[in-house]
């Protein structure tokens, strides 16, 4: 037993075992990707910036200006202005603004949205929204529906 302990100490056995682990790991496949040249695929539930959408079939505005998303937002980043429809049924949007500077991507605004099964507000898969000034984060309705133009990076 003593000789074994002595040999272990002299021959640096535990260090060689560690080296063997690192050597084995050299041959494992890479798990990193070369962003921005390549990007990872997102699961369907991925929470990017919240955006608005229209009915995919009819192209009509889905938002009914119920103000529920504005009420539940923990950072108060959504502001909605609406007016009564001229025909007297319900309300229509005048403006719908999300301040992406404040948004914390919690996804709470999607939960109470009453337009089922397709919610008017949804968490998109957009995540590249770096800007040069603060005003560019205050996003108006048109941009919320259409999205920002995505910059394509080339090598």
């Amino acid at each position, binding site marked *: 037993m003593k000789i074994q302990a002595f040999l272990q100490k002299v021959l640096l056995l535990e260090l060689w075992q560690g080296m063997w682990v*690192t050597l084995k790991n050299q041959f494992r496949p890479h798990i990193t990707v070369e962003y921005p040249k390549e990007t990872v695929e997102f*699961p369907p539930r*991925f929470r990017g910036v919240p955006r608005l959408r229209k009915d995919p079939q009819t192209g009509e505005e889905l938002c009914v200006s119920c103000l529920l998303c504005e009420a539940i937002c923990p950072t108060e980043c959504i502001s909605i202005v609406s007016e009564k429809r001229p025909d007297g049924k319900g309300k229509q949007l005048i403006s719908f603004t999300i301040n992406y500077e404040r948004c914390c991507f919690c996804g709470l605004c999607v939960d109470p949205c009453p337009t089922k099964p397709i919610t008017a507000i949804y968490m998109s898969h957009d995540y590249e929204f770096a800007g040069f000034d603060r005003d560019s984060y205050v996003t108006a309705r048109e941009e919320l529906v259409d999205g920002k133009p995505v910059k394509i990076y080339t090598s």
Partner: protein
Amino acid sequence: MFRTEMMDINMGPQHPSTHGVLRLKLLLDGETVTDTDVLIGYLHRGVEKLCESKNYHMIEPYTDRLDYVAAMYENLGYVETVEKLMGITVPERAEYIRVITAELQRIASHLVWLGTHALDIGAMTVFFYCFREREILLDLFEAFCGARLTYNAYRIGGLPWDVPPGWTDRVRHFVKIFPGRQQEYDTLLTKNRIWLGRTKGVGILKAGDAIDFGVSGPCLRAAGVSYDVRKAHPYSVYDRFLFDIPTGENCDTYDRYLVRMEEMRQSLRIVQQALDGLPAGEVMGKVPKRIKPPVGEVYHTVEGPRGELGFYIVSQGEDKPYRMRFRSPSFVNLQALPHMVKGSLVADVVAVIGTLDIVLGDVDR
């Protein structure tokens, strides 16, 4: 001509080994630490006060940002506290999924601890391997709730979504491959003479002192006290699973390392059992649209990766809490730091900060 004097040294707040913005004022006698001042508050956001102006739904994203390395536990503790206050019963399936995600989060959190702790002491390879395995877990969380760090994954009364199709198989795959990977960390560290030299007998915290300081979690268990909230006051469905509480004997950094390594294995056991017993059914219980708890106060704890994580809510019957208080384990455990580093070398301070496994978001709130 020559004279010796005590020297004040500032460590942090911008120091890679303080795991955030922690500032230590060390009084040194040569290389030996004689006194330590722990200065915190650089990350104070006033979340407790902020919660008084938010309704109960809105608070959950804020709890994500307390202990951002183990946000699942902050979510779990918070929603369970509100459920306890209101007497809401959660569907079984939701409870099981909560246990699975929370235990996976414990492994993810311990992987961050192991990687950074080893990196601080000088073993760089482990860091990369730990983060590689953590990546699998974060992908699982991302598929489940859509975020990788600040999950907001639970709701009061259950879960917002059921697990996506194929998710449980991916968890099973992780449960299968992880023991082999953990064996690799074991080979790299457990018998390594540098690791032993840097951790054995360093930062001793005896059981009596640990209890006096209010230390909880792995730091308390490494001192030989077998206290775990999951066993002592079972919450959720933890009373249905078989698992052991690992304890240490020597109260030092090496024992805390062994305890946390064993905790990861026990977490895997719990995940395996929860996957096998996962019932079918709903994931959202019956919850009123406006959360208005009755007048009263409640305190509820969960066993986080860092220790006992408590939530205290005083309700006055409104849709906002009157007072919200977090018992964050990192803050309490940090109190023991001056006691643990007294008389040791400056290099050991780094090891002790690593072994306490503090998260500054949790310390400052």
